[in-house]
C-alpha cells in the first residue's frame, strides 16, 4: 500500500460537537483529532452512538441546528470550513468534497432520472454545454462499471438494483473529481456480494484519482478490506488511531481490543454432534408462493420458498443463510405459522402443523417460538416487559403468580435484573430488549426456538453477548434452534448445520464445517468469497 501523505486533505483538529440539552452526554463528539491524506482511506469505526456519522456531517456542513460545532477546526486542503458560510460550503460540496450515504434509495430523488440528477450537479457547478455534460455523465457511469450507461442515464432510481443505485451515488460524488470522498456506511444496506463489488470500486477509483476517503463503518470486516488507517470512536471520543494492520493486530486500548475480539470468526467453531438426538422439526417440500394474480392483475407468482426440506434435531442449531430476498425469513415464518405455507409439511414431532387451521393450531403455538430482528419493535411499547413475558404462559392457563415467578427466573436466565420486570421497553437498550424477547420466547418452554436475524440490528459487542447467551440456552435447555442470518460469521459460530438459500431454494445443506470450508455450490462459494475480511482472524492479537 503506497500511501502518499505529504499534505492532509482533511484535517480535523480538536473538533467538539454539542448534543442538545437533556441528552445522556454533553457532546456528540469531543476533542476529536484525525486527518486524511491524499490517496488514503481512513475508516472511522465505532458502535451506534459513537458520533461517527455526526463527524462526517460536520465535515460536509450538514449538521442539524440542534448539533452545533462547539470548538476545534476542520481544514479541507488547508481551508478552515467548520465555520464557513453556507455559500462557501455549497461551492465546496461536490467540487472539493462529496458524500455517499447508506441508503441510496432515499438519497436519490425518486421522480428524477439518474442522469438528470447528476446533470443538476454539473449545471450548478460548471459552465459546460448540455452535450458535454451528458458525455461527462456517461463517462463517469462507465467509470463506475455500470452496464449500458445510456440506459442508466434515463432510468429512475426504482428501476435499478441497490448496488446500481449506490453506483449512481458514487458517480454523482465523483463527477467533479473531488479531493475528499466521505462514505457513510455505503455498503451496510447492500448484500454481501454487492458490497464486495462496491468496496472494490471505491478502492479502485481512490487509487486512480489519488483521492482522500473518509469511510464510516461499524464492520471490522470492511475495515480490514479497505482501510489504510483506522480511527476508533466510542461515545464521541477518539479511543485509538493507527494504521490498519497495527491496530487490528496490536490494539492498545481495552475498548478496541474488546471490539475487535467481538467480531465472530469465519472459521466454523468446533461443535458437539447431535446425531442420535430425536428430530424435533422437519419440513418436507415446504413451499410458499406469493401473488398468483388477483381479479384484475395478471398472474405473477413469486416462489418465495421452493421445496425446502430441512431437519433440526433436539439440541441442534441449524443456520439458514442467504442474501435478502433469498426466502430465508419466509421459511422461518412459515414454520412459525405467522404466514401460511402454500404447500408442504412442517412436522413438529409427529404432528404436521403446516396447513392446520388457526383454531387447531393454537395448541401447537407454544412449541415454536421466534425472536425477531428489530428489538425496538418486537416489544409492545405500552406494556411493561413483565406483562409481555407473562402473556404467553397466561394464555395457556398459568396463574398470574406462577407466570410472574417464571418471568423472574427467566430474567435471571437472560442476565437481567428480575426487578426490572415492571419497567417499560423504552427504558432498555437494544441488547437488553433482545434478551427480554428471548425470555418471552423461553417462557413458553418451546421445543424449537427461531432466531430471525435476531442479532443483526445489534452492535458487535452486544451481538457477541447475545449469541453467547443463545448458545448457552440452547445447550442447557436442549432446544432445537433455527438461526436465520445473512451474516456468515454468525452462522459459523453458532450453527451445527447450515442451509444456504438462493431465490427460495436451498442450494447447499450440510454440517457447517463442510459448507464453509469445502463449499460445493457456486453460490455458496461466491457468498464466502465476498464476506469482508474473510482472511483476517480477528481477536488474535500479537503482544504489543
Amino acid at each position, binding site marked *: 500500500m503506497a500511501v502518499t501523505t505529504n499534505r492532509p486533505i482533511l484535517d480535523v483538529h480538536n473538533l467538539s460537537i454539542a448534543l442538545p440539552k437533556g441528552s445522556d452526554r454533553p457532546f456528540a463528539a469531543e476533542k476529536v483529532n484525525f486527518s486524511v491524506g491524499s490517496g488514503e482511506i481512513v475508516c472511522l469505526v465505532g458502535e451506534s452512538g459513537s458520533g461517527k456519522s455526526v463527524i462526517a456531517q460536520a465535515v460536509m456542513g450538514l449538521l442539524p441546528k440542534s448539533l452545533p460545532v462547539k470548538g476545534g477546526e476542520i481544514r479541507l486542503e488547508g481551508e478552515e470550513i467548520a465555520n464557513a458560510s453556507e455559500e462557501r460550503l455549497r461551492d465546496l460540496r461536490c467540487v472539493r468534497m462529496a458524500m455517499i450515504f447508506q441508503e441510496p434509495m432515499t438519497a436519490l430523488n425518486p421522480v428524477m432520472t439518474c442522469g438528470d440528477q447528476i446533470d443538476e450537479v454539473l449545471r450548478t457547478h460548471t459552465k459546460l454545454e448540455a452535450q458535454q455534460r451528458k458525455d461527462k455523465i456517461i463517462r463517469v457511469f462507465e467509470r463506475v462499471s455500470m452496464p449500458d450507461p445510456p440506459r442508466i442515464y434515463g432510468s429512475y432510481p426504482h428501476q435499478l438494483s441497490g448496488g446500481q443505485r449506490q453506483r449512481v451515488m458514487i458517480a454523482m460524488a465523483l463527477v467533479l473529481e473531488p479531493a475528499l470522498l466521505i462514505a457513510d456506511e455505503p455498503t451496510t444496506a447492500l448484500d454481501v456480494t454487492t458490497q464486495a463489488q462496491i468496496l472494490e470500486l471505491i478502492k479502485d477509483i481512490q487509487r486512480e484519482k489519488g483521492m482522500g476517503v473518509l469511510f464510516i463503518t461499524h464492520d471490522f470486516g470492511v475495515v480490514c478490506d479497505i482501510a489504510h488507517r483506522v480511527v476508533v470512536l466510542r461515545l464521541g471520543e477518539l479511543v485509538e488511531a493507527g494504521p490498519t494492520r497495527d491496530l487490528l493486530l496490536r490494539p492498545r486500548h481495552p475498548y478496541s481490543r474488546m471490539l475487535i475480539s467481538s467480531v465472530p470468526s469465519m472459521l466454523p467453531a468446533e461443535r458437539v454432534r447431535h446425531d442420535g438426538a430425536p428430530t424435533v422439526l422437519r419440513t418436507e417440500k415446504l413451499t410458499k408462493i406469493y401473488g398468483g394474480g388477483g381479479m384484475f392483475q395478471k398472474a405473477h407468482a413469486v416462489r418465495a420458498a421452493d421445496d425446502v426440506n430441512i431437519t433440526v434435531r433436539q439440541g441442534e442449531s441449524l443456520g439458514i443463510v442467504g442474501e435478502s430476498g433469498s426466502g430465508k425469513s419466509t421459511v422461518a415464518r412459515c414454520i412459525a405459522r405467522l404466514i401460511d405455507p402454500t404447500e408442504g409439511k412442517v412436522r413438529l414431532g409427529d404432528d404436521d402443523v403446516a396447513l392446520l387451521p388457526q383454531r387447531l393450531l393454537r395448541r401447537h403455538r407454544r412449541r415454536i417460538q421466534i425472536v425477531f430482528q428489530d428489538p425496538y419493535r418486537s416489544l409492545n411499547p405500552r406494556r411493561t416487559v413483565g406483562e409481555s413475558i407473562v402473556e404467553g404462559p397466561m394464555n395457556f392457563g398459568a396463574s398470574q403468580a406462577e407466570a410472574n415467578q417464571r418471568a423472574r427466573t427467566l430474567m435471571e436466565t437472560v442476565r437481567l435484573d428480575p426487578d426490572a420486570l415492571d419497567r417499560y421497553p423504552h427504558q432498555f437498550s437494544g441488547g437488553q430488549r433482545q434478551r427480554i424477547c428471548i425470555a*418471552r420466547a423461553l417462557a413458553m418452554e418451546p421445543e424449537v426456538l427461531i432466531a430471525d436475524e435476531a442479532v443483526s440490528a445489534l452492535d458487535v459487542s*452486544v451481538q457477541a453477548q447475545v449469541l453467547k447467551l443463545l448458545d448457552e440456552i440452547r445447550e442447557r435447555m436442549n432446544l432445537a434452534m433455527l438461526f436465520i442470518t445473512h451474516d456468515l460469521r454468525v452462522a459459523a459460530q453458532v450453527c451445527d448445520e447450515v442451509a444456504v438459500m438462493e431465490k427460495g431454494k436451498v442450494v447447499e445443506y450440510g454440517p457447517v464445517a463442510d459448507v464453509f470450508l469445502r463449499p460445493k455450490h457456486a453460490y455458496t462459494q461466491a457468498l464466502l468469497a465476498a464476506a469482508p475480511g474473510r482472511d483476517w482472524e480477528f481477536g488474535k492479537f500479537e503482544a504489543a
Partner: protein
Amino acid sequence: MSIVLENEVDAAAARAAAVARPSIWVRLLRHPSVVIGGCIVLVMMLIGLCAPFLGTIPPAQIDPTTRNKKPGVEITVRQDDGSTVQRTVLMGTDSLGRDIYSRVLYGARVSLIVGFTVAAISIAVGVLIGLLSGYIRWLDGIVMRIMDGLMAIPGILLAIGLVSLFRAGLGTVIFAIVVPEIPRVVRLVRSVVLTIREEPYVEAAISVGTPLHKILWRHVMPNTVAPVIVQGTFICASAVLAEAALSFLGIGIPTDTPTWGNIMAEGRQFFRVYPHNIFFPAIFLTLTVLAVNMLGDGLRDTLDPKMSKRV
C-alpha cells in the same frame, strides 16, 4: 462476572434510552391552542349547565307584547302572579317575544350534547368496526365497500333522509349525524391497524397463542387512541355544525327546545330588519366550533406528532 461487563457495554445505550420526555399532560398544558380551545369549550359547557342561574327566563316563554325588541332594550315583563318586573333583553327578543339571551344559553346544551354524543358514539362504533375490518382480512372487503357506499352520499343529505324516516327529536338528530361520521372513523382506525398488525410485537403475541380479542384490545387498539381522540374533536365540531344545519333547515329538533340552529332558522325571515336573531347564536356557534377545532389541532400536535408534520 459477565453480567457486570455486559451491563457496562449496554449502559450507555440504556442511559440514552431512558432520557425522559415531559409527561403528556405537561406537554398538553404547554400547547397554546389546547389551553385556549379547552378553556372556551369549558366555558361553553358551564354556560349550558348553569343556564337557569345566569339571569335567564324559560326559553320557550312567549310574550306577544315584547316582540322583536332590539338588544339592550329595557322591557316590562308580567309574571304569573300578576306583578311586573323590568328586565333588559341583552340580545333582544324574537318575533314571538321570546328572550334570545335565554334561548342561546339553553341552546348551548343541545349543541354540546349533540357534539359530544355524536363523537362518542361514532368513535365507539367506528373503532370496533375499524379494528375488525383492518385485522380480519376477509371482512375487510365487505366492510369497506359498505363504508365507501355510505361515504358516497353527502352527509347532510343522508341525515335529512334519516330524520325524515323517524320522528324529529334529539335522538334522531344524533343518529342521523352519527351514521355519516362512522366511515371516517373506520377508515382512520383501519389504516392504523393495517400498519400495526405487521409490527413484530403483534406477531410475537400471535406466536405465544394470544386469542384474537386480546390481540386487538391489548396490542392494536392502544395505537389508535391518539389519532381517534384527535378525529373525535373534529367530529364533535362538525356535529355541532351539522345539528345547526339540520335545525336551520327545519328538520332538526323542534323549536320548543332551543338550539342555535333553530334560533337562527326562526330569525331568517326578519334578518334584514332584526339581524340580532341570527347574529348572537351564530357567534356562539362559531366560537364553539373554532374552540373545538383548536383543541383538536393542539391534541394532534401533542398526541400524534407524525400526523401534524404530514398535514
